C-alpha cells in the first residue's frame, strides 16, 4: 500500500516488543520487504540519538517500530526532528492519546498497526467511548478496548459453558467462533489459543486517530501454531 521495500526495524527489548518484531521479521520477506538494519532499545529509554542517527544513514523507505506510547512518542518525535521523512509504522501499544500529546506535530502520519477504528458506526463501541471518556476524564486507548472485550468474552465463555468450572470455561473459550469485539469480529482461536481476526490500521491525521486500513489477509499476521 505504501510501496515500502527497505525498512529499518526498531525493537523494544521486552517480550511484547520482541515477539511483535519477530512476527514482522518473519512475514517481511513474503511481501518483498527487506529489513536493512535492526536496532533495539530498553523500556526505560527516552533518548534515541544513536538509533536516530543510524536510521538517517540507512535512508529507508519506511520504519517499523515496536514499543509503548511513552517510548514511541519520544522516538517518533526524535526521528522527525532529525529530518527523517520516511513513513513510520508503530505497533499496537503506540495507540494512546498520550502518544499524540508527546510527539505533538511529529505524530502526524504515523501508522499504528492493530489499533482500532474509533469512528466505526457501532453502537457498543460508541457507547464504550462516551462512557469511558465520561468516567475516566480521558479518551480510551487500544488496550482499554481490548480489555473491555476480553471481559465480555470471558462472560460469554462462562455463559456458553453453563458453569464456572475452569475446564469447561476454558473449552468454551477455545471453541469461540465469530464473537463481536469492540475492535471488530473475532474469528476464533488457533491451536495455541492465539487470536484470529482481521486488524485495523490507524493513521494520525490532524492530531487524531483515523482509520487508514483494515488488514483482512489473515496469513499476513498469522500467529505461531507451535
Amino acid at each position, binding site marked *: 500500500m505504501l510501496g515500502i521495500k527497505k525498512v529499518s526495524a526498531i525493537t523494544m*527489548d521486552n517480550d511484547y516488543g520482541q515477539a511483535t518484531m519477530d512476527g514482522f521479521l518473519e512475514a517481511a520477506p513474503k511481501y518483498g520487504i527487506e529489513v536493512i538494519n535492526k*536496532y*533495539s*532499545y*530498553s523500556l*526505560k*529509554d*527516552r*533518548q534515541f*540519538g*544513536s*538509533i*536516530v*542517527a*543510524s536510521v*538517517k*544513514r540507512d535512508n529507508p523507505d519506511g520504519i517499523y517500530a515496536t514499543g509503548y506510547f*511513552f517510548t514511541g*512518542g*519520544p522516538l517518533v*518525535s*526524535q526521528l522527525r*526532528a*532529525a*529530518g527523517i521523512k520516511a513513513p513510520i509504522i508503530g505497533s499496537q501499544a503506540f495507540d*494512546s492519546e*498520550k502518544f499524540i*500529546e*508527546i*510527539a*505533538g*506535530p*511529529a505524530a502526524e502520519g504515523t501508522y499504528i498497526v492493530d489499533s482500532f477504528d474509533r469512528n466505526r458506526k457501532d453502537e457498543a463501541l460508541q457507547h464504550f467511548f462516551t462512557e469511558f471518556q465520561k468516567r475516566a476524564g480521558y479518551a480510551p486507548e487500544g488496550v482499554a478496548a481490548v480489555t473491555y472485550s476480553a471481559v465480555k468474552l470471558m462472560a460469554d465463555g462462562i455463559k456458553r459453558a453453563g458453569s464456572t468450572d475452569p475446564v469447561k470455561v476454558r473449552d468454551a473459550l477455545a471453541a469461540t467462533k465469530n464473537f463481536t469485539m469492540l475492535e471488530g469480529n473475532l474469528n476464533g482461536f488457533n491451536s495455541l489459543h492465539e487470536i484470529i481476526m482481521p486488524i485495523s490500521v490507524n493513521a494520525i491525521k490532524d492530531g487524531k486517530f483515523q482509520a487508514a486500513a483494515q488488514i483482512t489477509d489473515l496469513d499476513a499476521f498469522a500467529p505461531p501454531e507451535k
Partner: protein
Amino acid sequence: MYYIDLAVTGVSVGCMYAMMAVGLTLVYGLLRILHVAHAAVFALGAYVTVVVANATGSVGAGFLAAIFITPLFGMAIYRMLYEPLLSYRPDVPMIASVGLLVLMQDAFRIVFGEQGVTFRNNTYGFTTFDVFGVTVNAVQIAIVVSAVVIFLGLHLFTTRTRIGVGWRATVSQPKIAASFGIDSIKVRYLNFAIGSALAAVAGGLVALLNNLVDPVIGYVVSYKALAIIVLGGLGSVRGTLIASLVLGLVESYGTIFIGRWLDRDAIAFLALIALLMIRPQGFVGTRTA
C-alpha cells in the same frame, strides 16, 4: 556525517549526565553519603518545570521555579534525612536515601498520574537546526550551553570567592577548615542547594527534550550517575565531568557497534567494571591505599 551525529548525541547526553552527577559527587565528597535520592531531586526539577511552564505558559518561568524549589527540597533532605543519621555507618543514610527515592517515585505517580505530563507548548523540543547536514536539536544546544556556563561559573565561584574557597576547603580538609572559622553546616546546605539546582536544570532540559515527564524519569540517570561518580574518582568534580562526557560518547557509539549484543544501559556498568579493575581510583583520583 553519521559519526558527527553520534558525537552530537554523545556530547549532549554527557553534559546532561555531568549536571546530574556533580551534585552527587559533591555530597559524597563532603559527607561520604551515596545520595541516591538525588534522582528524585532531578525528577522534581522536571515536574516543577513542566507544571509551572504549563500553568504560566512560559518555559523560562518553569525553569526559574525549579531552580528555586529544588534547592529547598535538597536542603530539606539533608536536614531531615541525612543529618540525624550522620553518626551511623555510611550505608544507613544510603538506605534511607533509596527509601526516599522509592517514596518520591510513587508520590509523583499519585500526584501527577502514571501516564506522565507533557508540555502544552514545547517549541524548543521540536526545533532543530541543520548544520552542514548534522541535525542538532535546540534543547541539545541548551544542554551543552547550560553545562558550560554552569561549570565555568562553579569554577569561578570555588576559586574566586571566599564562600567558594571555604566550600572547597571543607570538602578536602573539614577539620582544618573548621578551625579557620568556616561554618561547615552552612557549607553542607550550600552544597545541597547548588547540587539540587543543577539536577533541576538537567531534569527540566530532559523533560523538554523528551516532551514527557513520568515518574521514572530519574531512574536511568540515577544509577548511571552512580557509575559516573565512581569512574570520576569519588568526590572529584573534574573527574565527574570527564567521566560524564566519556560515558555519553561511549554510549552513543556503543549503541551502534555493540548494541546488538549489549543493552546501552549496560555499557556504563561494563565500563565501570573494566575501569575498577585497571584503575580503581577512577580517572583522576589518586591512589590512597
